[in-house]
């Protein structure tokens, strides 16, 4: 019951912040939250939450329904492949793979939007590329902060339990 309530409030808050930040800087909170919540919350919460958030973002941003979910799926698949291939104990490699995933998300989002909505390939100007890189870099920095925050309150091996010392 509590999870449902958190989920509903979370969707409204995330939607508000996503629109606010996206129209101001072109920054996407959706991929930042999803990548940081990945593995930290149960699948029972993760799937319905991001499915509903993705659809509502597609509808309110006037994009084809399913675009956010598809791009998130591809980004997570690449992230898992990176996690499998790169060493586990190295945090730098983790954040480099995160940077790559964020870049991929922004890049794919624009490309697929253009392709599905207008049937044309998107042209990436230097201005767009700089914006994508800056937003991805900011997302990685925020992910580092989130990681630090989590490690102070939660056990590093299991995010289900609170750290006592």
């Amino acid at each position, binding site marked *: 019951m509590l999870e449902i309530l958190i989920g509903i409030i979370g969707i409204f808050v995330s939607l508000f912040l996503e629109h606010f930040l996206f129209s101001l800087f072109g920054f996407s909170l959706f991929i930042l939250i999803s990548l940081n919540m990945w593995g930290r919350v149960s*699948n029972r919460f993760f799937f319905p939450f991001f499915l509903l958030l993705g659809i509502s973002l597609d509808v*309110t941003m006037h994009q084809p329904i399913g675009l956010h*979910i598809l791009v998130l799926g591809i980004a997570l698949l690449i992230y898992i492949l990176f996690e499998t291939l790169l060493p586990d104990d190295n945090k730098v490699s983790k954040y480099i793979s995160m940077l790559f995933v964020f870049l991929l998300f922004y890049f794919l989002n624009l490309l697929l939007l253009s392709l599905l909505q207008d049937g044309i390939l998107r042209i990436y100007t230097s201005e767009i590329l700089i914006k994508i890189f800056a937003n991805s870099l900011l997302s990685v920095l925020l992910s580092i902060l989130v990681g630090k925050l989590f490690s102070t309150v939660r056990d590093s091996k299991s995010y289900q339990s609170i750290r006592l010392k």
Partner: protein
Amino acid sequence: MFKNFLRIKLLQPLILIVLGILLILLSRSAIGSALRVPFSYLFEPVSFTAQNFSNSLSNWGTALFDASAYIEENEKLREEILEIKSKETSVINHEEYSSLKANEALMVTGGEYVLSKVLSFSQKGDIYINTGIKEGVKVGDSVLLGNVFVGIISSVDSSGALVRLPTNRSSSYEVVILPSTVNAQESIKLDGYIKSTAVVTGVLEGIKIENIGINSEVLDGDTVVLRDERIGQLLIIGRVVGLSNNPASTSKSGFVSPIFDYSNLLTVFVKIK
């Protein structure tokens, strides 16, 4: 069993990809538009509020950054207002009303129009307006301001719609070119004035005009008027600029300078009938 199935890590994003593809296919069918309505009804007020907040914050940021220019402009406007007030008081009181009436006077008669506010502009060549299914707007309706063409409705929700501008790379229209001296607003027979037919397409740099007859006497500054079966009425797009002068080519091409900057649009009209 489903819980165990979900525990396989690589399968989770694959499920999302399959779901995404299914939803995209679904959104292309009739069920897709039905699916949009409840979501837009629930979440569009949130998105409107967030966008309004970000717009006002952005405006404040720009204003603070460029404060000296704003102060200068404000002083000039105050002087102008004082001058107009001394001549006619009603102009100031009904400024917006007058501009709408002026638009109405220019509007092509014989149709039903919905007044819409522009909520956002996308560099891709789209604008988002605040009218949708509730107001009778549907995909393919033409959007105009006075007798100037703004775009076509490309997607519609319960209380909002996306307008594809002529600058969008997927936009392509048949047009005619008239001399700059002809007033296209007057109801005259335009056939005698047509210099050439052409095609306009949206490109990265703006609106490109192609297939202009090589022997036609088209000049920079001539008026580009939309004459496309999909729109069904004569509407102005802009003026010809940067006309090519290559004697080896079989047709002339150039660019169209729109009548107004699409990113500055505040109000538009959707022709629903």
